[in-house]
């Protein structure tokens, strides 16, 4: 993996390294959570488990974009972070308004409260970093 130094597009360097790490952890957490739950008891809360799997895909794509770097990956990561934030806010509000639709929690339930609110803090931080890395 060769990248130009100091081009401003090394998204996975400096503060980006911390973001890669956190997104990597959340990819593994969301993916393993949804896989285990789907294999064990899909019928209990299908909506929650599918949403966890969707979150895992978004996290995986952002991790990949951050590691790859470059202007195209930066734009793609920005779009995905916006989608992630929208997902957290939508699912968070949804779980509060209609708890009966979610017999089991997702990564994004209650705005990510079960995960120390990191799911809602992370996309905002990432978008700030991605915008700054462009300069």
């Amino acid at each position, binding site marked *: 993996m060769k990248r130009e130094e100091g081009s401003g597009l090394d998204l996975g360097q400096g503060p980006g390294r911390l973001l890669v790490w956190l997104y990597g*952890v959340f990819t593994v*957490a969301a993916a393993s959570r949804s896989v285990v739950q789907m294999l064990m008891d899909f019928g209990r809360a299908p909506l929650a488990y599918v949403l966890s799997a969707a979150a895992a895909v978004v996290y995986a794509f952002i991790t990949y974009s951050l590691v790859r770097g470059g202007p195209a990956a930066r734009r793609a990561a920005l779009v995905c972070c916006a989608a992630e934030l929208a997902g957290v806010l939508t699912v968070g509000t949804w779980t509060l308004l209609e708890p009966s639709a979610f017999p089991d929690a997702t990564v994004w339930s209650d705005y990510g409260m079960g995960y120390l609110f990191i799911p809602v803090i992370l996309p905002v931080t990432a978008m700030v970093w991605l915008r700054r890395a462009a300069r």
Partner: protein
Amino acid sequence: MIDALTLAAGLAALALAAWCGFAFSRDQPTKDWHFIGMAVVSALVLVQLVVGVVRLSGGDRPVQGTAIFVAYLLGAAAAVPAAGFMSLAERTRWGSATVAAGAVILAVLEVRLYDIWGG
């Protein structure tokens, strides 16, 4: 599993997080001493992994399910070494921040392991 071991691993993880957080606040990368600290924490978690597998093969069953328990054991064992390797590649304060974050995650995993085992 063994509550004392879970507690020790959790506290050691928090200490490592504070130590690397301190290095971050002083604008320093991780140094040799930090890596020795990571090795100590990793050794504790590896012992925990072995003890957990032995207890499982001995017929004990975690309250919340064996699959989830094993997944958390593996995640706990991987967290600090993975963060350590990333900090080797990132020789700035952000490498220290990565290890601190990994140690906090490990502490959370230890709390979950305690719950899953049925403590």
